[in-house]
């Protein structure tokens, strides 16, 4: 199977503090890969490196075939990114946001216009067209952000807590969008605090204190830890060893 993300012995230090302590994992093309961990476990640090925004201290990191040390610009062109905290510009309208992101990736006006129409129809945004993004319900905003993160047809999409605070029905619709893209061969790299969503991933990893504490399919992990659900495993691994020292 084709490899989308390859991480070998990744270490990231800030001064004496080891944020990522020798991480090893691979993500295959078309896989939905769940990235779990307590706040401060080192998830954001790792995601920043995988997105080409930060350089590793040591180790090998390849994303979409590009090297994180020397080809971070190439990585950025070939990935999409959205987060719960920041995804779209609040004081731009839906269309302006799409045009802005399309422009950043150097897409033609004709293509951007076509994509704009496509998203508005697909996500049923007709009634919101002229509104500023800040006036959109969070669920709609997040669905739009996901589409926009996909506008330049990246091979990997990074989703950082995309569903935090979203209502339970929209949260599930969001996962329908994720599945649809994964079926087209897109690789999805997603972090979440909803443990039911961990079960929707092909494989998950649980980070604890900068290290990977568990990695596998949800079913295999439940079997290995004799747990009924991922939440139990998470609590088992993260409780006790969790520190608040950073």
């Amino acid at each position, binding site marked *: 199977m084709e490899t989308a993300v390859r991480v070998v012995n990744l270490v990231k230090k800030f001064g004496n503090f080891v944020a990522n302590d020798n991480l090893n994992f691979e993500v295959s093309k078309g896989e939905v890969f769940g990235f779990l*961990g*307590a*706040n*401060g476990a080192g998830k954001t640090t790792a995601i920043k490196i995988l997105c080409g925004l930060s350089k590793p201290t040591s180790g090998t990191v390849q994303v979409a075939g590009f090297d994180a040390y020397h080809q971070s610009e190439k990585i950025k062109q070939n990935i999409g990114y959205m987060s*719960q905290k920041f995804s779209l510009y609040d004081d731009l309208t839906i269309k302006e946001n799409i045009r802005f992101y399309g422009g950043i990736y150097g897409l033609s006006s004709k293509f951007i216009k076509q994509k704009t129409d496509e998203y508005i129809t697909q996500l049923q945004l007709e009634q919101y067209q002229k509104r500023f993004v800040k006036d959109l*319900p*969070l*669920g709609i905003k997040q669905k739009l952000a996901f589409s926009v993160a996909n506008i330049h047809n990246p091979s990997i999409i990074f989703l950082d*807590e995309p569903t*935090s*605070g*979203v*209502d*339970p*029905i*929209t949260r*599930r619709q969001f*996962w329908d969008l994720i*599945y649809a893209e994964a*079926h087209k061969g897109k690789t999805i790299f997603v972090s979440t*605090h909803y*443990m*039911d969503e*961990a*079960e*929707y991933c092909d494989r998950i990893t649980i980070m604890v204190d900068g290290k990977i504490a568990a990695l596998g399919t*949800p*079913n295999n992990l439940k079997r290995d830890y004799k747990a009924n*659900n*991922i*939440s139990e495993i*998470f*609590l088992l691994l*993260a*409780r006790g060893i*969790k520190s*608040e020292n*950073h």
Partner: protein
Amino acid sequence: MNNAIIIQSLSKSYGDVEALKNISIDIKTGEIFGFIGSDGAGKTTLFRILTSLMIPDHGTAEVIGFDVVKDYKELRKNLGYMPGQFSLYQDLTVKENLNFFAGIFKTSIAENYHLIEDIYKQIEPFKNRRAGKLSGGMKQKLALSCALIHKPKVLFLDEPTTGVDVVSRAEFWEILKSLKQQGITIVVSTPYMDEAALCDRVALIQKGAILTIDTPENIVSNFHEPIYAVKAENRHKLFEDISKFEATKSAYWFGENMHWIPKENFDEKSLENYFNMLNYNNIYIQKISASIEDVFMELMIK
């Protein structure tokens, strides 16, 4: 005083958006009352009105005997509020923030230390660190300490656990339980349905209206539709097939299972037959009791 909070016919609009639609609720003294709903449900607007930070368009609200509009000065001395956005001074240290909040309420850290001790001792090792440099979990604990330092009778916590990991969420609810033991009425909002079970009573809130108010146990037991957990090897195919099935009223993923609610006059036999017709192997179908999230979603669709 039996009721700590009496809310009558409260409404608030922003332009043509109705944030709260004629809401009436009584919250009992000493209970943990949860507003369960997602972003845009109206939780924050309601909290701002109840903490006297915003004036309602219609209706009245009384908190521990004080009218939220007329008696706001007295009310503010007696309530603690932890807003959804981190609102402490980022460039003051942990200790300076706490001193500041104690100071404006004309008290001192020493005077009410017993109230915050369990929480504050967890962040005390970092008391000289600036609040802006704290981790998410520590910020949350500091904000709670600051909201408690003047010994409020009622505490409002607006989405204290959004974006917080499972472990820290569990710890936070332990803290709330111990505060309840001290007689503080706690009003908390959350988008996490599993936290509803930790409240004495909850209101499910959606688009400015209350869907239901009851104890978590009653909300679940008053839900009379049959509900089944369904599992199959190919998740994607299961989802597609079950969505197409004429007997399906609703079907949603809950972790590894799909929760299936049949239309009237259908049951697990209908589903079994359907799967047999489609040549499914290893199908798992089990009748289950509804969770708060099941109930919430069914009420949302109504």
